């Protein structure tokens, strides 16, 4: 068990590319933290630096109370699960799981007992004598998990472990990983580009963009109070609606009579609203033209125009709508305002 702390960690590749700008954050003992961002945002680099697979250019990294900047990956007391599982193809599941222990000179009987325990936990007992090539994707993923669990490390690192699985299996493994982490209480860092994984699994999310942290917060905070337009549009599917609005006399106006109070200088402002915070209201004061109705089973998405700006509305499956003009109302408490130049929340 351990807390992790990063102090001004920076990564510059030999070719001069700065993959991670100086970054600091702390992860508490037993916390499940998800690093999320689009590809090339530096999330994997960050994780690999924590694992010790990548040199840290500048900064201080500590796991537990120990500075591990120059500690070999094997001695950092970590375990990592890779995107393509990275199982040893010529070893049986048993040997794959036990290999790390064997290298640490654990007694053979201990290894066997621990491998059995891990296999039982992950429902792998009947597959122990198979080779990875004889397993399905989900089973391989479990073996990779087993290899991490068996060592009883202080820190789990996950590098997009579910992106090679199909949607159904991904959903199932998401729950399994989360449950396992809860049970073992091991501090975990999980890298993904899938915002659904981030939202569902994380205790805390760190949103990264072009090598810098955009926001750190709980899933609820990130979702409802995005710190920037990047976070607003990256997290959530469909993304938050971002509309151009005008601020005047301490109020922000979105065409018509819609306005919220805001202490901002006069001028253009970006008005952010989640699709589910808008509802159809025949008595509402905003006219909206529905262009396309997207049928999603449990709910519908209405894509259309509000004063010439694109807008998406989320309605429940009970609300029947067809294309054409309707009237809507917006939950003004849920509005988030952004500075159009910096993209940061006001």
């Amino acid at each position, binding site marked *: 068990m351990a807390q992790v702390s990063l102090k001004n960690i920076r990564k510059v590749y030999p070719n001069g590319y700065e993959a991670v700008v100086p970054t600091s954050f702390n992860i508490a003992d037993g916390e499940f933290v998800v690093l999320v961002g689009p590809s090339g945002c530096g999330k994997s680099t960050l994780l690999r630096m924590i694992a010790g*697979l990548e040199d840290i250019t500048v900064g201080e990294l500590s796991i537990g109370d120990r500075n591990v900047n120059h500690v070999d990956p094997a001695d950092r007391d970590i375990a*990592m699960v890779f995107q393509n599982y990275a199982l*040893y*193809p*010529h070893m049986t599941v048993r040997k794959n799981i036990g*290999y790390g222990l064997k*290298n640490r000179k654990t007694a053979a009987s201990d290894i066997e007992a621990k491998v059995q325990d891990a296999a039982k936990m992950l429902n792998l007992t009947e597959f122990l004598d198979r080779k990875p090539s004889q397993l399905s994707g989900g089973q391989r993923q479990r073996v990779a998990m087993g290899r991490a669990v068996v060592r009883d490390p202080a820190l789990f690192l996950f590098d997009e472990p579910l992106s090679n699985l199909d949607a159904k299996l991904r959903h199932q493994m998401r729950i399994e990983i989360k449950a396992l982490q809860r049970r073992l209480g091991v501090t975990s860092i999980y890298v993904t580009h899938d915002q659904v994984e981030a939202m569902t699994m994380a205790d805390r999310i760190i949103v990264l963009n072009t090598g810098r942290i955009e926001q750190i917060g709980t899933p609820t905070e990130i979702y409802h109070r995005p710190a920037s337009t990047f976070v607003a549009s990256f997290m959530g599917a469909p993304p938050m609606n971002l509309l151009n609005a005008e601020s005047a006399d301490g109020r922000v106006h979105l065409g018509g009579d819609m306005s919220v109070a805001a202490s901002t200088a006069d001028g253009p402002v970006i008005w952010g609203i989640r699709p589910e915070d808008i509802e159809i209201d025949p008595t509402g004061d905003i006219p909206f033209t529905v262009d396309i109705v997207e049928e999603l089973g449990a709910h519908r998405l209405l894509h259309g125009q509000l004063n010439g700006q694109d807008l998406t509305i989320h309605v429940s499956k009970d609300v029947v709508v067809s294309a054409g003009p309707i009237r809507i109302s917006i939950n003004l408490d849920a509005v988030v305002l952004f500075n159009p130049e910096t993209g940061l929340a006001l």
Partner: protein
Amino acid sequence: MTDTTSTPIAKRPLKWTHVMDHLILILGALFMLVPLLMVLQTTTTTDLETIKNGPEFVIGDQFDDNFMSAMFQASGFSGENTGLRMLMNSLILGIGFALGKIVIGMMAAYALVYFRLRFATLAFWLIFTTLLLPLEVRILPSYEVAQKLGLLNTYTGLIVPLIASATATFFFRQFFRSVPEELVEAARIDGAGPVKFFIDILVPLSQTMIAAMFIIMFVFGWNQYLWPTMVTTEEGMFTLVRGIKQLTQDLEGTNIPEYGRANMLALIAILPPVLVVIFFQSWFVKGLTESDK
């Protein structure tokens, strides 16, 4: 439809191009086979008959006599170079040559691919250009070095100077480069150092590749002629390929050349490479084509 044996085979119209194709193939096969059959025929007759009548279509009864003399009768002065002895020397050369090349090639490729050497690419191309400098080109300096090191007439001298291999290094380098990076990283986190990773992970993964290399290199080593002729002067060190020559040399004077025995030795010399290729064929194809990682 219980009787499946009488299912009529669809007759294809006879095409002249097919006939030509087969004719060419048959001619090619005969071209390769006839000399072998001649060798086989000669081993069954007495030397006298061979020298009198040349190759015949008759199969004689001297096969076992020729076999015994080829395997167990020594020629030369020392009486050390029996067929059996030469067979052993050839096997030692073939296996030592193949294993040596594989070990050196693998280790060189491992260093080139996995370690941050400053001039790895340059080193690789330097190794690669040695393909342009085969032993035959540098035979004199090689001989001098071997002689100065006192390696003449030793197995070490026979094998070691031939071992450095650009081909094996190249094949293993390509193979190692296709091994996923994550495997190295997983092994690092699992606490496997460079040596352990090599032995526990890379070598088992390279199995089929090693088998394929072994076949090529064994046949290559077995057929070495020039170098063994240079470094072995003691008859006890002769290899088969070199020893056969020794037998047919006695043409002058009243001696009848030992055709039966020499051809029998030739036959014995052909067998091991053929057997290796036949038995390891599937590995060979697998090693060079499959990428099961």
